[in-house]
């Protein structure tokens, strides 16, 4: 495998980006530090030494009290994203909320401690504080916690991005693998070798008694194989193509079981220009014939219907079954269809297959109605 044609591996952070981010962060740290120091030095004289340097018990209680607040803010931050219009202002708001709430939380911790450690701790006197001390303490606390919060956010988002990046790498690899295998099984499952050899045997049997029918069966089989090959090279086909393929297949099968098999299909020419995954119906049609004929010798009716409902395309195939037939586990054909739908449409498409009545089985594909992009300017395409 040529490594050049694989999707490019993500590069390490560009030097310019690194310089910009760290530069900005350092400006932030410096400014906060300067502001903090200025506040402290200007107002230090106004503080009681006790209020500034609370003992370790109080500091622990303070931080424990702040932890839930911090977690709530980081949780919100990790979900807010970093979009210019909504994310960034929201992040800023969260940081401000945290920094603002820190001061009352600290005071609350001091009061709790005063109540709990009564007698053991030399409580700072409740004497009249000089005016301005409260404001200075608040702004110092705000700036200091704003800084700390920013640090934490950087760590959290950094780790978050690392994880996202690692996950996306894994997803890309998984997607590539699923694509390849789904395509391979799709190619393999389009027409079972069993069916092909049975058809060849039917033709062989017709050569002597009815050479003309044998000749036209060879031509029909050639048409079928031609379409099979061309559809196998494409991921999507028009619904009309898909229906004519099903018709060809069913007409050939009717040559084998003419007296038992009746089929009804919508007119391929009257279908809207909608696209479906190539040969997505084929495993269902093949199943309908196989399971329809098995287990009894009565007539089998196979009915294919296609319609649009609220911009979703629904393709349904109903066949007669033997009433005694036990629904076996999901065959390889059905799971292949399911997998291809999942790879291409995720949750927007589904396949359901079940016994509709005592003697009929139904399989139904629901998928988005895929239309061709309407060209903006006619003739503005290829030169």
């Amino acid at each position, binding site marked *: 495998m040529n490594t*050049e*044609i*694989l*999707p*490019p591996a993500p590069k390490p952070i560009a030097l310019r980006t690194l310089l910009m981010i760290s530069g900005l962060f350092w400006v932030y740290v410096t400014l906060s530090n300067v502001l903090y120091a200025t506040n402290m030095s200007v107002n230090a004289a106004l503080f009681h030494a006790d209020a500034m340097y609370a003992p370790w018990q109080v500091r622990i209680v303070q931080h424990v009290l702040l932890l839930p607040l911090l977690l709530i803010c980081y949780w919100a931050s990790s979900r807010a994203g970093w979009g210019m219009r909504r994310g960034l202002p929201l992040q800023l708001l969260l940081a401000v909320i945290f920094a603002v709430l820190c001061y009352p939380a600290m005071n609350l911790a001091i009061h709790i401690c005063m109540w709990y450690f009564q007698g053991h701790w030399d409580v700072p006197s409740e004497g009249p504080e000089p005016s301005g001390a409260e404001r200075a303490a608040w702004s110092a606390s705000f700036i200091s916690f704003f800084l700390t919060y920013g640090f934490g956010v950087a760590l959290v988002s950094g780790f978050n991005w690392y994880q996202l990046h690692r996950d*996306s790498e894994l*997803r*890309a690899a998984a*997607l*590539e693998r699923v*694509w390849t295998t789904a395509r391979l099984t799709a190619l393999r499952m389009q027409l079972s070798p069993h069916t092909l050899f049975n058809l060849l045997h039917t033709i062989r049997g017709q050569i002597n008694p009815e050479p*003309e029918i044998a*000749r*036209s069966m*060879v*031509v029909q089989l*050639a048409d079928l194989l*031609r379409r099979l090959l*061309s559809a196998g*090279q*494409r*991921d*999507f086909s*028009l619904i009309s*193509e898909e229906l004519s393929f099903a018709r060809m297949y069913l007409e050939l099968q009717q040559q084998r079981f003419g007296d038992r098999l009746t089929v009804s299909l919508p007119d391929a020419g009257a279908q809207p220009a909608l*696209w479906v995954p190539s040969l997505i119906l084929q495993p269902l049609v093949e199943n309908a014939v196989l399971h329809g004929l098995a287990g009894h010798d009565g007539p089998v009716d196979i009915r294919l219907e296609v319609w649009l409902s609220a911009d979703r395309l629904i393709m349904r195939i109903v066949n007669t079954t033997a009433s005694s037939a036990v629904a076996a586990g999901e065959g390889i054909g059905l799971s292949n269809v399911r997998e291809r739908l999942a790879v*291409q*449409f995720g949750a*927007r498409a589904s396949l359901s297959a079940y016994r509709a009545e005592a003697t009929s089985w139904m399989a139904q594909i629901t998928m*988005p109605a*895929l*239309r*061709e*992009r309407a*060209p*903006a*300017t006619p003739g*503005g*395409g*290829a*030169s």
Partner: protein
Amino acid sequence: MKAFIVDDERVARRALRECCEAEPDLEVTGEFARAADALEAIRRDPPHLIFLDIEMATMSGMQLARALDPADAPLIVFVTAHDHYAREAFEVSAVDYLLKPFDETRFRTMLGRVRQRHGANTAAERRAAVDTLLEQLQRATRKAAETRPRILADAGGRMQMIDVAQVELLEADRNYVRLRVGKESFHARTTLRHAEEAMSSQPMLRISRSCVLNMNHVREVNRTLRGDFVLVLSGGTTVSSSQGYRDKVRMHLEQLMI
């Protein structure tokens, strides 16, 4: 009608002869295994109709048809196992086209159109015959466009099918491939390699590790002082080749200029 059969395979000639023998107005006056012999015989004594195989060892049926003077060439029916020659066949003024294998029904349908053309003596009849031919050519062209691969892409949450002939540029973008179509941009949930595979009917050129463009949409090529190529696409998008692909792009463009 006098008819020639040109096919290098004996059994194939016999199948065609049997079909012709069932028709009272058709007489096979020559069978050839080599196109060169057939060409000589046609020039000496032109038949009304030639059944011409396309894939032959020494000289292809297409070459033989081109060697004939279109003014008074016989009616040509190409007989081939490949359906992708249809457009080309009608472009070298073939009257019809027969896919191998064929049965009596298809042979007769084809012959009906040939008779219409052969027996067209009045202006109205000739006009009708040309219309039939045009309709066949249109059908072949439409079919070629319909069978061209489409890429499933997302445009603001809505899934759409995009004809590969309209895609100007493929760019790898994390888990997606971005398709540039005119001034619009779409996301396809696939890999660059897979998308490039789907684009194989278009002349694609890789200009960097993550970027492949459709040469049909290149409107302008410029070079920077460093030697990188700057290409302007029909939708107005400008892309430049990366250093690693500079030489490959240059070689490709030089080939185009010759």
